[in-house]
């Protein structure tokens, strides 16, 4: 090779490597079963999922894609690899095959075609914080916003099982008749999972989880699971709620009590058939487990429809090309409500103890003042009427409670008057 040839060879090699490096970002093509093709770089890959990074205009996006939703993968653009044969497909394929859902974007308020989406956050303990009354009030505030879709953004570790039916009723009877309802889950544990079960459309955040719905109560020796007729009532309640969400009650049963649960997935239709034994194609839970599903398995087994990391991504999965966020007042009500409940619980505990201190000193007037302040806090945080402050051992702060305390205060005052006489 002459010096000149070597020089050109080197130049060509450098150019080739530069071209390769430049195009390497779009070397992989992921063909989804809904018709979309994502071109970019597969940055991470597991047995059942992959992450692909691609550009949408000038914006870089990384999307979690389940292999169940993939028709085929072209790696390095020249090497087609079909999705693994045993990879299941989702129970519900995307309702509308969208040509390019990556185009979903927040629209300007003036855009007439934009869909109106309200995001209502439901967080913290079910009952005091994630509360049916507060949810209804939020939904009432949506009237003037006229949303097309209401997204319930759930992040709760559970709480009072008694609130589940009320929340489910609020979703079923108060929201569904007016709006398309979607649950978008960061964490839905226990009573929060049971609530979300009302929704036909569940979507997960990547870090999302749903399950662990075992009902229990605390006793001196430790936590005790609900049993007998009370447990049967919860089973019946969740059968009804499963029907509302168009879900197989066997799945919720495995979240409530240790149960064998497996699934068969029709490779052609993606339909998931559940079995309460271990003979199915996929073992989902066993008799020595309580079921909690992560985001990937939620979609894999059709409990959720897709994983969405952002509002834009969720909108794409909802087949919404242009959207605007509405319902800010409704969301503000939830945020304020939770803040008020948190403060009110702490203040109620503190004021009730101060009331006792005042009584110990025989100062009934001061005790009454503290009790009046407790009433004020309950007016600001209505869920205290029903739940009190369960973490602090404070009972429901309802009319009956206040009547009883006032009666006792009056008796003490009367005793003092008698002594003085």
């Amino acid at each position: 090779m002459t010096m000149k040839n070597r020089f050109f060879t080197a130049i060509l090699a450098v150019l080739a490597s530069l071209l390769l490096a430049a195009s390497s970002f779009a070397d992989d093509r992921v063909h989804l079963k809904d018709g979309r093709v994502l071109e970019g770089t597969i940055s991470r890959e597991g047995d059942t999922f992959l992450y692909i990074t691609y550009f949408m205009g000038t914006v870089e996006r990384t999307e979690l894609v389940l292999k169940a939703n993939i028709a085929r993968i072209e790696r390095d653009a020249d090497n087609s690899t079909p999705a693994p044969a045993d990879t299941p497909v989702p129970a519900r394929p995307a309702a509308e095959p969208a040509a390019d859902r990556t185009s979903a974007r927040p629209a300007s308020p003036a855009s007439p075609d934009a869909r109106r989406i309200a995001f209502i956050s439901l967080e913290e303990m079910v009952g005091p914080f994630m509360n049916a009354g507060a949810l209804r009030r939020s939904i009432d505030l949506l009237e003037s916003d006229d949303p097309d879709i209401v997204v319930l953004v759930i992040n709760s570790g559970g709480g009072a099982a008694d609130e589940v039916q009320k929340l489910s009723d609020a979703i079923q009877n108060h929201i569904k008749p007016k709006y398309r309802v979607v649950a978008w889950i960061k964490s839905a544990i226990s009573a929060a999972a049971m609530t979300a079960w009302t929704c036909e459309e569940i979507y997960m955040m990547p870090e999302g989880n749903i399950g662990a719905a075992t009902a229990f109560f605390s006793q001196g020796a430790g936590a005790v699971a609900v049993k007998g007729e009370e447990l049967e009532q919860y089973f019946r309640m969740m059968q009804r709620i499963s029907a509302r969400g168009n879900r197989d009650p066997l799945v919720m049963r495995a979240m409530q009590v240790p149960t064998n649960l497996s699934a068969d997935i029709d490779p052609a239709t993606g339909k998931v058939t559940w079995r309460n034994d271990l003979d199915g194609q996929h073992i989902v839970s066993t008799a020595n487990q309580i079921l909690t599903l992560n985001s990937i398995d939620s979609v894999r087994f059709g409990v959720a429809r897709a994983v969405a990391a952002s509002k834009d991504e969720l909108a794409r999965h909802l087949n919404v090309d242009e959207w605007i966020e509405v319902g800010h007042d409704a969301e503000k009500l939830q945020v304020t409500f939770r803040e008020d409940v948190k403060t009110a619980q702490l203040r109620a505990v503190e004021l009730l103890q101060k009331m006792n201190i005042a009584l110990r000193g025989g100062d009934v007037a001061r005790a009454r003042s503290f009790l009046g302040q407790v009433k004020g806090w309950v007016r600001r945080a209505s869920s205290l009427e029903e739940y009190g402050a369960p973490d602090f051992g404070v009972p429901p702060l309802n009319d009956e409670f206040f009547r009883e305390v006032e009666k006792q205060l009056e008796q003490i005052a009367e005793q003092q008057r008698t002594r003085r006489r």
Partner: protein
Amino acid sequence: MRSSPTARLNHRIWAPILALAAAILAYSPAPRPAPAFFATAAAVADEPLDRIILKNGQVIEGRVLSETDTQVEMLVMVGGISAPATYSKSNILSIERGVVQPVADSRRPSSPSASPRATDRSESRPGAARLYVMRLNGNIGFEISKTPLRQAFDDAMASNPDAIVVRLDAGSFPEGFDGMWGAEALAPIVTDAINAGHRVVFWIKRAEAGAAFLPLVCPEIYFTSDGRLGGVGDLADFNVGEDVVNLKQISLRIGHAEGLAITGGYEPKLIRAMSLKPEWLAVRFRGGAPEYITWEPRPEDGDDWHILTDNGEGKNKDEFSFEGNDVLTLNADWAFRIGVARGVVDTIDDLAFELNIGRDYEDISGRSVSILNSWRDRVRRARTQLQDLNEELGQAGRGRGDAAALGRQINTLRQMRSLYTAFEEVFDADGVQRSQIDIQIEDIRQRIRDANRRRR
């Protein structure tokens, strides 16, 4: 340990040797300057070099030293530095031999002892890449909490570096799995930075207990050669009451931790293996990619399985709980092999090389050192002060209880309240401590009122 006694014995003898060999051979513990290789580099400097193009787009130039069916060993040359590195063929797009003309490098060290760190990193150099290195030392949930981490990331992002490197040497408070809640609370700080377009890299020396979960939200992880991730304990020991309730608690915890792993793109099966002693996890590699099963490998499962964790029962029970395979603790070798770590590096130079930044970079630690150190010192001091004040309060309670003494108690309680407010995320996140202090103050005031009344 392993299923057969012979395998167990062999494993004990060979494991350290194999691990060492694997660490050298498996792939790119990034090139370190080694005097012996400078001579080699100089000797071959005038001959055309080889080039490897990796599937991730990275182009490596140097001299191919050896090649097998599965890997290529190369003397990598960057600037004046050369060192051997091994690349798995599954990661290689092409190997081109003799295609790169060596370029005379004025930066090549003149003697074998020259240090690649000779460049003054503290001075800004036009065109140099910028690495913001943040060192997280201590316990998540105590020294490492929201306020300092948010401030450090804000500072890092304001510096607009090419990469934010989080050097992690941390455990958690509380210890064990439940330190995960602290890590989960910090995770949005990391993911916010990533979502804002910043390149965040975790560089792990020790990610123990709850701290093991924080790096998992980040797609780019590197290990030091002695790095460890795990040590979260055994959730199967969880006991808050009846078995069914314990199963619920275990299940929801695993669900949360799997979510963190999924966020960073890691295999969620690793979480159960890290957290539950009865769980099996075995891996083998197909086309360079890991393939897992969650049971003891059977003949029908095929060959080449490596048992990462066994069920920890009977003959599988580890002799020393922190060294065996009853629960998964990833060392650098395995972290790299299964793709949790992208590389194993011991110096910031090596890390910069692995990040494709090369030698010409600036280390801009910015204010993170002072932010994190200052918080750590203050929170530790606050803990001591709270202990002292509490003791003082106890002694005062045993005193005469006159008005002056009671007044001093109120003063002490107010000091404690201030400390709880200043460090609420560590000592009083739910506000209960301060509420209790307010009640104690009210109690003392009532005693003062009672005393005054008696005097009247």
